[in-house]
């Protein structure tokens, strides 16, 4: 990320914080602020959380507490593509476990980690509401259903190729 982009992101976040600080119970909007920060940066960098602490007047420890409590927040930069494997009950009984194992074997990463080439990061998902298509994996914002371990491998290949072009 270039510095100008970072400056823009910080300016936008700052504006958002300034706006919520005008509202009633401003500190109750901390989670909304963290959502905004993650949308801007892709994750929650430590410096950004420190900045939020200063601007909202909330102790950094509290912000860390909140950021680490909720699964939605990433403290590390994600890969180029995020793979979310649905581990909801419907997907589980239809074999999500085997697919997950193949992904882990193939990419040599676990949940919350990024591949060495920075291409993929892996995270668990709860029901994606596509149980009719179970088992389901979401890559970035696209849902892929009726998967098998083999189809999953083909998908990874497509994403790898897609990124080369």
């Amino acid at each position, binding site marked *: 990320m270039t510095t100008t982009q970072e400056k823009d992101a910080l300016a936008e976040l700052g504006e958002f914080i300034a706006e919520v600080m005008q509202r009633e119970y401003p500190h109750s909007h901390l989670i909304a602020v963290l*959502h905004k920060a993650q949308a801007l940066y892709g994750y929650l960098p430590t410096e950004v959380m420190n900045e939020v602490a200063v601007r909202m007047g909330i102790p950094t420890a509290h912000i860390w507490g909140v950021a680490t409590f*909720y*699964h*939605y927040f990433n403290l590390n930069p994600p890969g180029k593509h995020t793979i979310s494997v649905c581990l909801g009950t*419907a997907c589980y*009984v239809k074999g999500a476990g085997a697919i997950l194992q193949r992904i882990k074997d193939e990419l040599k990463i676990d949940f919350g980690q990024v591949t060495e080439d920075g291409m993929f990061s892996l995270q668990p998902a709860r*029901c994606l509401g596509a149980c*009719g298509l*179970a088992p389901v994996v979401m890559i970035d914002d696209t849902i892929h259903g009726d998967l098998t371990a083999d189809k999953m491998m083909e998908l990874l290949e497509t994403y790898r190729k897609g990124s080369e072009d």
Partner: protein
Amino acid sequence: MAAKYVITLCDGTKCINNGAHRVRAALDEQLRAHGLTDQVRINLSGCLGMCEKGPIMVVNPGYVIYGGLDESDVERIVTEHLVGGKLIGDLEVEQDHLYNRFYRIFGDVGFFGKQMRIALRNCGIINPENIDDYLSLRGYEALGKALTEMSPADIVAEVQRSGLRGRGGAGFPTGLKWKLTAAEKATPKYVICNADEGDPGAFMDRSAIEGDPHTVVEGMALGAYAVGAERGVVYIRAEYPLAIKRITKAIEDARAHGFLGERILGSDFNFDIEIRLGAGAFVCGEETALIHSIEGARGMPRPRPPYPSVQGLFGKPTLINNVETWANIPVIIMDGATWFSTVGTETSKGTKVFALAGKVVNTGLVEVPMGTTLREIIYDIGGGLPGGRKFKAVQTGGPSGGCLPERCLDTPIDYESLAKAGSIMGSGGMIVIDEDSCMVDIARFFLEFTQNESCGKCTPCREGTKRMLEILTRITEGKGRAGDIEKLQRLGETIKKASLCGLGQSAPNPVLSTIENFREEYEEHIEQGKCRAGACKALIRFEILQMCKGCGVCRKVCPVGAITGQAKHLHVIDQDKCVRCGLCFEKCKFDAIVKV
């Protein structure tokens, strides 16, 4: 020949008690007598919600509903309506219940035949992003009626009389909760819509909001008026972007039309709603944790009392209900508690939405009257298991619920019956499980989830679930010991009694219910090192049979090089190297590899 008429006979319990089967017999006889058997098709349906007028018959085309029938009326229907083409006014049932519209569009589809849609009455019918669509189906009529004709106390009384109970899981009587909140003096008060939908395998609330967001907005406005609140919050999972977009638009449109904001519809009632996003923590569905999360903190529950109705959001009296609970409110106010309470059973009124999934042919959302049996949902609506597979269990209530075996399939859906059978109603997840799944592994799956989601505040839940998970994992790895089952039961009972919030109090349920109903599977794992479903990796082995053609496919796909052999010769698996991924088994074209 295509049928000229389609007649739907209600086959619900109350219609049967009122003589629906006699009516059916008379109809068959009359059709035969008039030589109409070929021209009339007869369907049976689940409860149509007009029980007080039963037996009910619907004649299509025309959607003419006849009620209160006996044998002699049937003859008139056949001669005057089917033959003569005239409607019989004195037998017709006056009906303008909203959910009927759904049936006029979808009623002839088998999947919907046994359903009854109250909460989801508009889903799939209206454009959820267009407030005019909602208005054209009596949208905001209940709010108008409430503000002009009813006092807040009238509304509370009506909701109490309807017998509605919370759809978020616990089934607390909604009217009573409203009454308690209304009685509080402190202001401002809040109403909250719980759209955190935690059950991993369920999506009722998301679909309800995506399909008909205004119903939730209207329900909340009615609740706010009833308890004297001026502010509302929808707490919704960040993982539901489309639902968030639609509820946001619905709130804006409602505001623009004067259904939210100051002096709503010219009354002196002020109310507005804001949206707060969750961030992926199961425990935040618990009401006190949810409130902490809205306040910007870690979503940790706290002991109750004080209940949120006394001390809730920002320390003020707060009314919190689930999405589906809210969606029922406008109908109750519009069509009255008397009508609503005709649907369902003695203790559980109305309908319940389920997200039907797993090993079943038709997956999706189903809304059925309380009292429908599990069998009707799975086989009549769900179409049974695919490919003739054998039913093993049905899981309801997600991580707080249980697994019920075949002998419980005739359990009617209501809060008490499901609890008695060893599960819970829960928020509406319903997963069908077949023989490919190992019940010990399913129990381990749910416990892994709750253990991971335990917020860590209280020891029984934090430590207890961890110990239970260790034991279960050990059993699935073939290292179970004598006494493990009893230890799980003892731990489970203690955790249920001693935990701070509903998460811990219900976390052992999947384990306890599988021990209760599938104890033999636990025993097989522990005593014989056997997993009958072939799901526990440590307990299975792959072997290559003599019939191996030596094609070499298995050798090539094996990720750990455990298979050796020369071309055109028998191959062998090195059991010490094998990681039991099953790839060779899947890939063998000659079925020469077996799982034992």
